[in-house]
């Protein structure tokens, strides 16, 4: 049983209003450590057995076409065993 993790982030140069809102809320609540916050999303996809090479290609394709918007986002695919 493998777990595929796809992490999607807005490209660094794209404005992230959500991250910005969190970033400005932190000091208001007394957390003064942060200089900037960016928010993304994480998908956990479970599958039976380890992914084959062609399945990995499919996962990449799904990440690029469905899970992320390649115009404004980047993604990373990881396999966790």
């Amino acid at each position, binding site marked *: 049983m493998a777990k595929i993790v796809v992490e999607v982030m807005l490209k660094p*140069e*794209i*404005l992230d209003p959500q991250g910005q809102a969190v970033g400005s809320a932190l000091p208001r609540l007394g957390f003064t450590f942060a200089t900037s916050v960016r928010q993304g999303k994480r998908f956990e996809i479970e599958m039976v057995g380890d992914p084959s090479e062609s399945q990995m290609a499919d996962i990449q394709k799904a990440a690029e076409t469905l899970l992320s918007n390649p*115009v404004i986002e980047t993604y990373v695919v990881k396999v966790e065993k």
Partner: protein
Amino acid sequence: MNLDTVSQAQIDPDHVQPFRELGLKDDEYFRIKEILGRRPTSSELAMYSVMWSEHCSYKSSKVHLRQFGEKAPHSEALLVGIGENAGVVDIGQGYAVTFKIESHNHPSFVEPYQGAATGVGGIVRDILTMGARPIAVMDPLRFGLAQAPDTKRVLPGIVAGIGGYGNCLGLPNIGGEIVFDETYAGNPLVNALCVGVMRHEDIKLAKAHGTGNLVVLFGAKTGGDGIGGVSVLASETFNDAKPTKRPSVQVGDPFAEKVLIECCLEIFHEDLVVGIQDLGGAGLSCATSELASAGSGGMNIQLEKVPLRDPSLSPEEILMSESQERMCAIVEPSNINRFLAICKKWDVTATVIGEVTDGERLNITFNGELIVHVPPRTVAHEGPVYNRPFAEPDYIAKLAASTVDVPLPITAAEIKDAVLKLMASPNLADKTWVTSQYDRYVQGNTILAQPEDSGVVRIDEQTHLGVAISTDANARWSYLNPYEGAKLALAESCRNIATSGAKPLAVTNCLNFGSPEDPGVMWQFAETVRGLADACLELGLPVTGGNVSFYNQTGTVAILPTPVIGVLGVIQDVRERTPMGIAKAGLDLYLIGQAGENFSGSEWAYLHGVMGNQAPELNLDVEQRLINLLLEGQSIFESAHDVSNGGVAATLSEMVLRHKIGAKVSLENPAPTLFAETPGQVVVAIEPTSTNDLVALAGKFQIPILRIGTSGGENLIINDADISLVELNQAFTETFPKLFG
């Protein structure tokens, strides 16, 4: 950092610059050299290239658009005309209304959600800039065929973007259009209209007056949004690698915009600005050069003071950035502390970045080095002007000679099938799937919204003064005859306003066309402007502003010429407005206006894949009399609905489906009357006791009227064709959910 300064440009005149990559033609580049007496710095090159682009300079359209000024009718109502961010009209009781429509077509194709969202944000800031509180938005949209895969990508994203941004701002979306045609595949049209209201004394202009006054940039920080093209310069100027390629997509933050609106209105209320300009296309380049150009002197800007979201931006990129939710104000030094205090209260970043001078140049320095030293007018208002060649394309004569030969339904069963088929077609089907994603009633002043003929909002809660807005275009008629098409669109928009009970007052437009370098497209454009200017003159309506969007084409296939015409009307008491739906049984239904047999450019012909013949010829005198009849007879109309796309069949169907109250109609000549699309017709419902009044009105204005039936029952019965409202409603409402989920 290798900064290209003015002194560098003087020392190194032969430095090769990527002006072609930035979209400048050779002769345009030489003209810049002539103006400056040297080669431009890379920052100057960036500014000129973007300000002299078609989008900012109107270089292909200017020579034609002059007609809106030359043929302008005298209008007492016009307070601010073409040239400012938006026109302003007087609606009485001390109120002024500003409205404008703009395109955001290409960005919405690249990234539908953000493209459409920032389109709303941009037009709202234009309205705000005039000193007005934005009160409503509207979005005319056009897409490729409804079944096409790319439409399934683009449409839901665009609709969600408009809803997402507009709803967050708390602005009602009160109307618009959705039209499908294959020429819009790859070129969806996203036009955004906003209307705002203010008191006469609150009008603000984009001018930088008064030596020593301060230039303040406020709102969001500047990031690398929308500067894709200019990265050519950055990559040339810097040898070190950039983090990633700069995006051409701008991302909007509606909550930041909402705060900016409230902040600006408080600043306006205390009269703290001399001039103000929003940052839209071309960002700081546009705002500083336009403010300085419209003002009396020059301007000095210290570019390093601009607060950055991304510290790696080069000066060229800072000048070009299209980061959203930013404004630029000119403030007297004595008011600056109060100005900054209000910004602080709203948590809006505000920074003094320069001052107005008595010189003649716009000077921009970066850490003390002079990088821009230009006469602002040459950037903002004296760009290149092209008299592009235009010629009537061959298809015009060919189509004009063709006939529209479509099968017409004859038997009762055929008529029923035809009505159901028509009402289920994507162009006519119920648009609730879209409009239910928009907030139509927020603020509590919406009187009428989609699917009514026009959107109506209340301006004053005591006197019930209100405004009505409608946008219309019939691109198929414009394709067949662009001159008549523009007049027809204006007439339809005015008719929609009058049908709702408001008096047409002023016109805005968004002219969407293919490439101006194609003489055929240029001819379509020239004819459209001529037609619109002539019609506005004849109807006595001033054009208050507008927008031109060229290059909407894929390869050699241009979109249908699509002049979207927005008309603003005023209604003295919104409680008297006329809704479109039949609200009770026992009313008499009348067709007002002359029924005709025009099928060219009609929805019925389109459904049969037939496009040909001539656009119907419009008689503006008749239209004006019809409008006068509608306004004078307003009190007797229980409901009224304009006859346009889909003919009388669509008009009747929409009237009965609104409140699910049927009608029994008999027509002598059902097929042409129902399905033909002839301008100048309205269907009204009146109490039988008002018959004499209607007859008298028809006589007074010399408009034919025809009693066609009565309201009531649970069916729409046309002669022997009996269509249950359940069945009709199903056909009407099923289409969009089926297509888009």
